[in-house]
């Protein structure tokens, strides 16, 4: 018993399960207790359950699908841009450009939307491009640090095997770090997912999870908001899980 309170202690599988179970029960109990009485902080489980049903009837699945589609489009475009910039950043002339793009992540979102609004009129397209601009800066930052963390020995190894500089780029950075790219996307996914919902609720288009949140806000429907939060959390976690699974399945050597 003392063991589970000792730092760095290794514990068995069963003990670990028990610990997790007790935490879950604790949270559940806290929820029940805090949702009782007149002025409750959280909606009761029944209210949340009702929220789920309402959402489902309003076509929750379609909205989830719509958000996922937006997310996928934005990620694909953003990763293409960021990868191109990052790979080219190994060329001295391009390096400052890549660094600058990475710095642009300090730009406020509103400024970006203002300028994009001048060019793009369709709300859905607008959402995609706001996300793309936003994500590219973050992805570029992570990808640049991925490249700079490659040890000199790896480049030297390729060079000593008569690779010319372009081959070094191809073998060591592009092919050799494919798995890291997936990991970079996964690491940035949390921000992207959060931004996606925010962007959807600011630039309201026909659907998406952000649109649902906006709706729920209006009615001050607690149960519904919590239900929606749970949905968004779980969809996000599933993408995270899938990406991690893909990386491990496709790249056996990937031990990050």
């Amino acid at each position: 018993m003392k063991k589970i309170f000792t730092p760095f202690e290794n514990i068995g599988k069963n003990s670990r399960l028990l610990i997790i179970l007790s935490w879950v029960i604790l949270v559940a109990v806290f929820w029940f207790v805090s949702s009782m009485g007149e002025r409750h902080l959280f909606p009761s489980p029944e209210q949340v359950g009702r929220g789920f049903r309402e959402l489902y009837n309003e076509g929750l699945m379609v909205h989830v699908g719509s958000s996922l589609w937006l997310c996928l489009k934005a990620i694909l475009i953003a990763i293409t841009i960021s990868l191109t910039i990052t790979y080219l950043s190994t060329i001295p002339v391009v390096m400052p450009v890549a660094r600058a793009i990475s710095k642009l992540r300090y730009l406020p979102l509103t400024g970006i939307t203002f300028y994009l609004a001048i060019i793009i009129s369709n709300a859905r397209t607008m959402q995609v491009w706001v996300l793309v601009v936003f994500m590219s800066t973050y992805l570029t930052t992570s990808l640049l640090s991925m490249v700079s963390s490659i040890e000199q020995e790896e480049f030297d190894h390729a060079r000593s095997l008569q690779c010319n500089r372009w081959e070094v780029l191809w073998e060591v950075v592009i092919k050799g770090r494919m798995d890291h790219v997936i990991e970079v996307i996964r690491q940035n996914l949390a921000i992207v997912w959060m931004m996606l919902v925010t962007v959807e609720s600011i630039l309201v288009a026909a659907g998406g999870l952000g649109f649902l949140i906006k709706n729920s806000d209006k009615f001050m429907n607690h149960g519904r908001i919590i239900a929606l939060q749970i949905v968004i959390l779980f969809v996000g976690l599933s993408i995270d899980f899938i990406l991690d699974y893909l990386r491990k399945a496709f790249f056996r050597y990937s031990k990050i």
Partner: protein
Amino acid sequence: MDYQMQNTLLYVENLSVAYGEKVVIKDVSFVEKDVTREGSVTGQVIAVVGRSGRGKSTLFRALTGLIKPTTGKILIADVATGVENDAKEVHEGDVGFVDQKYTLFRNKTIYQALMFALRHKDFSKEEKHNTITKYLQEWGLEKAKDQYPCELSGGQRQRTAIIEQILCSGHYMVLDEPFSGLDIGNIEDVKKAFSLITSLHEFNTIIYSTHDIELAVELADSIYVIGYPTIDGKTADYGTIVKHVDMKERKLAWKEYGVEHLEVVKEIKAAMLTS
């Protein structure tokens, strides 16, 4: 043990390397010539010893053309021109290099890595396959051939790195501490590889560093000690050649390890301790 000196194979003059402001090695000059012996093909085995941080790896990175020297030049024999005794400045890729950490491509299995090392050779896919299989057998890597570097032991990685360079490089091969982290069996394998490489072509030259002075004295026919020189009674803080032992001259090269070799070991250790 008669021998002759022929073509110059390695010419290093006034070499210095600095990382930024920090001069790591300076005033390094030496010449190594092709050694020939009646009745046998004799390559060159050159050992570089010296205490940690004295600049052995830095010297090797310069010799392999991986870093530009700050001053001085490094010439190697240019065999492509067909002109006798032609020389050229060393360029990356000219000299095979196995670094201290046995770096490999993290995304290639042993087999794929060796195939890659053979990519410029113009023989058929099947011949390449046979060559690789032969090496894998000889070096005890058959079972591990489809494993990635992260799934290999240190010794397996190192042997892979050495084979890669044997398959890819020309006459020159530089190995940074090839004997560290190997068991006695693997050490024998590397020794065998050395004698195999040097028996293949007159020009074949192996340059290696080691902290095991006995192994330097046993295998090499020329030994350089890198250390901090003493100038006007004060120890400088850059590495240079503080001692050169020519085992050929002393008639100790290509001979069974014996009492005379032990004397040389002592001599070298003494030189290392004061630099």
